[in-house]
Each structure stands twice: as structure tokens, then as C-alpha cells.
């Protein structure tokens, strides 16, 4: 199961040169062209070594179905989503395995509204792929690819319209960015310099590989921490390879945890921009709820998976939210995770409060998160989830995605992973012992249920 190909709600994903081949990418692109119909399809990629190869394959596959590839080149995933909507395209394809390691790559599919395919749409699309009956157009109807000029403009303009650019520029902040040798290596320095920042960077060369582990987890950010301390920066930003997630390092070089990225964004939006509901996914830290509830705003929980969060935000009319993994979503900019919106909001917060990151961080209630996973067969997982539902009968339960049990100051979540044959157990409490106790309680129940 190590080097498998994963076809599902988050696209088609595999290891380049092993399970994921250009032949497969072309076939999926042809099927996508058949699904969305003839017209423009926006195409972009991150910096992985296999990117140019898959890009050529996808171009050919789209043309085969009569779709005109609109080439954005190396751009962040949120940029592609915005371009798809802005250009009134039939859809879009992002060639990126996001936070997966460099050998991986993936195709992610975007609908005509600039959102990732919903589960229902994805199912329809994969049916077309599996039927294998892609409409090939006649020679005269094969469109040429078009190169998009200045592809970042739509994205950066949208962020500029949302935040107080003058206030940020006036603060003249010194910031460090770890671009993870990803799309940020091209775009983050100009973006931040345009906001009046003095910028120092690491992971800023495009090599096809990543100098650090691509997930912006605290223990992967040691280079950025050193850079922040040595250069005396007000803040450090860590992006993932495709620029949708963001982690923050405080002015002393300490990673503050990905959950805090969303908490700060919620704080800044609710304080300065808009009043309205907040949506985060189930496994997001309770600190986000604390920030929102302190401002009299209700937090809704969504299933795991970016498109599920996006759909819930649109349904609830949310003004801000996202995922606890550093994925900030501000629907007024675009209903997708975007590290650039997150950076701008954070800079605005610093500019307006004139306080260091560490002080702002201390103002937010601290929680401890414990994450574990249990290897499990799918058929056994169903029985376990049933047993847990009985165990917590009467408690405040959310069954959107596995079993999520909500207590006044803590929660525990058991769900079947979308990507691995494991049961994910997550618990959060004001202290580590409390979180651990919740996990132990769930494990004991699983043992008792005999599965």
C-alpha cells in the first residue's frame, strides 16, 4: 500500500514515475475535458520536478477533448481557483501534490465556479473517466494552448482590495518567508515587498525538490526560526509547496502552531472587516472557537476536506474560517485556502495592534492537541464508530465525519482516514493530560467493543 495511486475527492495522486504517469494524466485530462465540455480550462502547477512533464501531458489530454489550455505556469493553487472563476473558464486543473513530499504529484480538478469539484461532481467526473469514452474533437477543432500574462494579478488584486494596504505599508515590517522551494519562491517576495515589507527568504530556489519537509509543521521550520532570529524579523511565514497553507513563527523564532494561523485570521477579520459566522473543519483547535465566541460569533464545524469546508462556508454565509492545518479561507477574497490572504491579514493585525506576535499569541487561549492513528481494517472501523456512538450517547455529538464528541472545554474526534488504512484519533483539552485522557478513554472503548 506504500506507493499506491489515490483517486478520490482530492484528485488523482501518486508517485511520479511509479504509479502516476503522464499517460494516466493525459487520460484524466481528456476525461475532464469531456466532463466540462469544450472551452477554456485553466492549468497551472507547483515547482515539482515532474511538473513540466505532467503539464505537457495534461495539455495534450485537454486538447484531445477540444478544451483550450490556459497556461498560468508556476502559480499557487488559490491563484488557479481565482483565475478559473475570473476567466469564466469551463474548469481548471492544478498540478500539485500540495504538502506531499517531492516524489509525489497530483491533479486537482476545479469547477466553473473556481471551486474544487464537490464529491457529487467528482463522482460524475470519475464515472466519465472509467467509462473511457472521451469525445475526441476533429482536427480543425483542436485549440491551441494560450499563455496567461501576469497570472498573479487577479489574486493579488483581490487580497489588496480586502486588506488595508496603506496601514500595512506604513508599518514597514521586516518579515522572513520560507517558500519551501515552491510557488512562493517566485511570488512571495514581490507580494510582500509590494506591501511595504522588508523581506528575507529561505527555500527560495526552484530546484524541483524541497529543502525541508513540505508540511509546515513546527519541527520542520528550524531554518525559518534561525532566519527570523538572526535577521531580527517581526514575523516568519512558512508556506507549503503550492501556497495554500501557512504557518507562523513569532519574532523570537518560535513556531506557534498551524492552528494559530486560522485563529489570528478569524480575530482580524471579525475585528476589522466583517461580522458573520465562522466555519472550520472538525479537527481544528478549540482556540479558534474561543476567539470567535469572545466576539459573539458562532462557529460551525465541517467535514475534513477543503471542498467540504468551502461548501459549508458558503452555506452558512461565513466571513472567515478554514482548516486547523494553516489553511485560511476568506470567502470575500475567494472561498479557498490561501496563504497570501493569511499573510496579509497577519501583517494587518501586526500593523494595527503594534504588538509583537508572541504577545498576540499569549492573548489566545492555549489548548493541547494530541493526534494518534490506529491501523485498522475498514470493515472493523464501522463497528468501532458504532460502539463509540453508543458510548457517548447523550453527550454533544457531531457525526458528520466519524464521531466527534464535544465537551465544554475539550473534544475528541475519531474518523476513518481518506488516505491511509487507519483510524485517526484526535483530542484537545486545556492541558496535555486532559487530551491524553480522552484518547485513552476512546482506546479503552475500542478494546472493550472487541473489534
Amino acid at each position: 500500500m506504500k506507493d499506491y495511486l489515490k483517486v478520490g475527492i482530492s484528485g488523482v495522486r501518486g508517485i511520479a514515475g511509479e504509479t502516476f504517469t503522464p499517460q494516466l494524466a493525459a487520460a484524466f485530462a481528456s476525461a475532464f475535458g469531456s466532463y466540462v465540455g469544450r472551452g477554456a480550462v485553466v492549468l497551472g502547477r507547483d515547482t515539482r520536478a515532474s511538473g513540466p512533464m505532467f503539464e505537457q501531458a495534461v495539455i495534450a489530454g485537454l486538447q484531445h477533448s477540444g478544451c483550450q489550455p490556459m497556461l498560468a505556469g508556476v502559480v499557487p493553487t488559490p491563484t488557479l481557483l481565482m483565475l478559473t472563476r475570473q476567466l469564466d473558464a469551463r474548469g481548471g486543473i492544478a498540478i500539485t501534490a500540495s504538502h506531499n513530499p517531492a516524489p509525489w504529484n497530483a491533479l486537482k480538478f476545479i469547477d466553473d465556479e473556481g471551486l474544487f469539484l464537490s464529491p457529487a461532481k467528482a463522482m460524475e467526473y470519475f464515472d466519465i473517466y472509467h467509462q473511457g469514452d472521451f469525445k475526441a474533437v476533429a482536427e480543425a477543432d483542436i485549440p491551441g494552448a494560450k499563455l496567461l500574462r501576469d497570472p498573479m494579478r487577479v489574486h493579488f488584486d483581490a487580497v489588496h482590495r480586502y486588506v488595508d494596504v496603506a496601514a500595512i505599508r506604513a508599518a514597514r515590517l521586516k518579515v522572513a518567508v520560507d517558500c519551501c522551494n515552491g510557488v512562493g519562491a517566485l511570488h512571495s517576495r514581490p507580494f510582500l515587498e509590494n506591501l511595504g515589507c522588508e523581506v528575507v527568504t529561505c527555500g527560495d530556489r526552484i530546484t524541483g525538490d524541497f529543502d525541508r519537509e513540505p508540511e509546515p509543521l513546527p519541527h520542520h521550520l528550524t531554518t525559518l526560526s534561525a532566519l527570523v532570529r538572526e535577521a531580527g524579523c517581526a514575523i516568519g511565514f512558512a508556506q507549503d509547496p503550492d501556497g495554500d497553507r501557512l504557518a507562523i513563527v513569532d519574532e523570537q523564532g518560535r513556531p506557534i502552531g498551524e492552528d494559530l494561523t486560522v485563529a489570528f485570521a478569524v480575530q482580524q477579520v471579525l475585528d476589522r472587516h466583517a461580522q458573520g459566522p465562522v466555519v472550520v473543519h472538525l479537527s481544528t483547535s478549540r482556540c479558534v472557537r474561543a476567539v470567535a465566541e469572545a466576539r459573539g460569533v458562532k462557529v460551525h464545524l465541517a467535514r475534513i476536506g477543503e471542498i467540504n469546508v468551502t461548501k459549508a462556508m458558503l452555506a452558512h454565509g461565513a466571513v472567515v474560517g478554514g482548516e486547523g492545518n494553516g489553511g485560511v479561507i476568506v470567502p470575500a477574497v475567494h472561498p479557498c485556502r490561501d496563504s497570501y490572504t493569511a499573510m496579509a491579514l497577519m501583517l494587518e493585525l501586526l500593523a494595527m495592534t503594534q504588538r509583537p506576535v508572541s504577545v498576540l499569541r499569549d492573548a489566545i487561549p492555549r489548548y493541547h492537541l494530541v493526534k494518534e492513528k490506529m491501523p485498522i481494517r475498514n470493515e472493523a472501523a464501522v463497528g468501532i464508530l458504532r460502539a463509540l456512538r453508543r458510548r457517548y450517547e447523550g453527550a454533544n455529538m457531531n457525526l458528520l465525519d466519524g464521531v466527534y464528541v464535544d465537551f465544554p472545554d475539550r473534544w475528541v474526534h475519531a474518523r476513518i482516514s481518506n488516505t491511509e488504512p487507519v483510524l485517526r484519533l484526535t483530542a484537545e483539552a486545556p492541558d496535555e493530560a486532559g487530551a491524553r485522557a480522552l484518547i485513552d478513554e476512546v482506546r479503552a472503548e475500542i478494546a472493550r467493543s472487541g473489534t
Partner: protein
Amino acid sequence: MRDPGPLNTVTSNSNKISRRLDIAFRRRHSGSDFAMSDWGPAARGKRIMRSLRLASFGVQGIVGDGLSPELVMNFAAAFGTFLERGPILVGRDTRHSSRMLQSAVVAGLLSTGCDVIDCGVCPTPILQFSVGPLGGTGAISISGGHSPMGHNALTLLGAQGAFIEPVVGETVLDIYHARDFRKAPWNAIGAVQPSPALAEPYFDALARHLDAGAIQRAAFTVVIDPVNGAGCRYIGAFGERLGLRLLPINDVETGHLAHDPEPRPRNARQAASLMGHIPAHIGFISSSDMGRLSIVSDRGETASEEYTFPIIANHVLARRPGGLVTNCCTTRTVDDVAARHGAPLTRTRVGQAYVLSALSDENGVIGGEGNGSVAIPAFNRGFDAFLMMGLILEAMATRGLGAAALIEELPRYHIVKRQVAGETHRGYQALDTLANQDDWREGGALTTLDGLRVDWDDGWLHLRASQTAPIVRIISEAREAEVAETRALNASRLLEHLL
């Protein structure tokens, strides 16, 4: 349009052949390509036209039907696996489909770990010429050549731009069929390198090969019709280098070809009509890959493409003695030209790969086919319309003759071309039957190099099952038009009876 003269090509289309018939494909799931289903049951009761043909020197077919991005990607991956390392040059003509196929080819080659030099729109002869100077291990040319819109092909070229030898190419096909592609690991995938300018070194070499000074002094006015193909962006440099006053037509890369791209009289009418109003020394019509050429004379005659090779051979062999190679159904005018210059003549099967391979084996000076193609190994490794144009202009300039005079000095024959409908396997059976009978040959000598060829003192007859359509082609040539017609008619009746 004036009578193009006695060496006149007559094509009988009495049997209407659909260019595009029902195809049975089996689409296999996940990463594979469109593969032909077995011919037997599918062909029963139906006439099958192949929309795809894989051969050792490439693949050709109908876009979207046989030629899908996946198939082409697999074929390119087989070639990359075979060559083991790059850089591999990739060039294409201007057809809408060529862009798509180029992306597919590049992806397939990169997946095997080979670097690619992207030559963009590039005539096949310039691509062949550039392989050596750029240090390429090989090249893939994407062009439908003389085939109509809707068709396309990949041609595999080896080191120095030479055609892959048919036998060597079998290995590529074996890799393709076994799906035994080299999959480069993620950090060893090939890279695309931009191409340096190819026109300058190529035309420098061409000018050196020709008597460029004589051509420049002649200050020719020349009509060129590159049929909106790969030649469009290169004819300017060609004209400039040879001091021509160029009147280009159909020289815009629209993706659409203005007319059937096979250089032959009926496709030369636009050039001829222009020359009716604006005097020019000669008109040239090329295929979309610049591999074939036909001419319009200074008198406005749309000359048969059969003239191209003997005109050039007559000029080249006079200056450079050596062997000549041609296929087994090219006009006897070529035999006469070879004899006139004492050049040994080698005959091959039909197809440029066979001609070029024999040219190499025999160390010949010149090779060509009756479809308007000529190769000079001392200059380039394939059929080259720029070279052909240059040599014809050189002949005109150095000998002080007009285009019409170059045609008139050649011995004349009458060629008749007919075709009879019949499924390919029945066609082969019929030819087998005829090969074992004597009486229909009327004392002519039989050779079976490629199909059947019968030679008499005053002409010859060639019967061959087409590789691309369910027909048997008949070519009959004789001194007397009536004799050629009668032999072709008799052969077609015989075949109709057998099919």
C-alpha cells in the same frame, strides 16, 4: 491550365473509396491507448480503412481516432526507452493537431528520463539536419506531410537525423507493444531545453552546398506555396540567402491547410493562376513537412510531381558521378537519366525509409521517389524540399535554362494510375495468385520486391496492396499513352475479378 505535357498522371477514381470508414477499436482502461481490435471478425462484412498504422519508422493515423495523445505518448516513451538518453529533438508542422501531439510526445520522452530540445514548428529536413549539430541522440518529427487535414504522423529519426533503419525500428515497436517503458524516477525526469535558432546554420550549409553565387546572380522570381505548413516561417530565409524575389502564397500558419498538401498538379492551381498574371521563373508547391515538392514551370505548366526527381538527378549526376536509388514504381525517366550519366541504379520497396536505407548501403549520390522527393546524403539524411528547390534553381542558373526547358529535355513516358477496391488481405491473396500465373504478363519480366512489377521493353506495370487504404494500386507506364492505359485497364479487370 495548359496541358502539362506527355508525362501526365491520370488518376482513375472509378471505385469510390471512403477516406474514413468504421473502425473497431478496443479502448483499454487506465494508461493504455487505443489499440486496434483483431481484424478478422471486425472486418467481416465491412470494409475496413485503417485509421492507424504503426511502423518501425513511426506511426501515422487519423487524429482523435487512431492517433490519441496516449498512444503517441506511449510511442514516444518507447522511442525514449530505446535511445536510452537524450537530448531528443522534437519538431512539428503547423496543423492544429500537431501542437497536441507535440505536448504528448514531449511528456512521453521526459517520462523516460530523456531531455528534449523543443524545436517548435520545424520542417522535417531542417530537424534532420539539426540533430547532429545539436548533439541529439535522435528526433521525432510530427507532421502529416502530404496527408490531408485530419491525418498526422510521427517520424522517428536516429543519430545524425537519419531514418531509423526498419530492422532497428522493430525494437522500438517491441518496446511499445510490451509497454516496457523506462520510467525515470521523479528526480531524473527529463527537462525541456529551448532550441537555438536552427534556420541560420541550416541555410548556411545549404548555400555552401549549392552554387549560391550563380543563383543570386540569376535574380529569380519564385512563387512558393508551402501550404500553410512548416515551411512558412523558413522560406523567407531561403529566399534571402539565394537572392530570390519571393512571391509566397499560403504562407500563414493558420493551423488549417489551404489545400490538399500533396504536391501534384491539381494542388498547384493557385500557384499557376498567380503565375498567369505575374511572371515568375518557377513555382514550387511543397508538402506540410517540406519533404516533397512539385513545380510549376515558367510557362505556367503544373508539372507532375514525377518530374521533380529526374530533373534534379539529371543535374546532380552530371556534376557528381555515383549511384542512384529509387523505389520500384518510379517513372522510367529516372532509369534513362541514370543510364545517360552511367549511374548504377538500385531499386527498393516503396517508402522513404527503404530508399534512404539503400542510399546508405549503396553509398549512393542521390535517391528519390516519384512522389516528388529527393535526398542527397552528402547534404542531409532525408528528403528535403529546400535542397530540391535549391538544386532546381542551380540547374536553371548554371545551365541558363528555364524550368520548362529542364522538363523538356527529359525522356517522356505516359503514366496511368488506377486503384481497385478490396480488403487488404484479399489484395495480398490476389497478388499471390497473379504472381504464380504467367499468361497475363504477356512476356514481361516479373519482380516481386514490393507487390508485383512487370517490365516490358516499352514500359512497366506495378500492382501493390496499399498500406493505408483497402485498395490495390495500379501504376502503368509506357511510351505510348494507349499502351499504358490498356495495361492498366487489363490489370484492374483482372484484380476486380480476383477481389
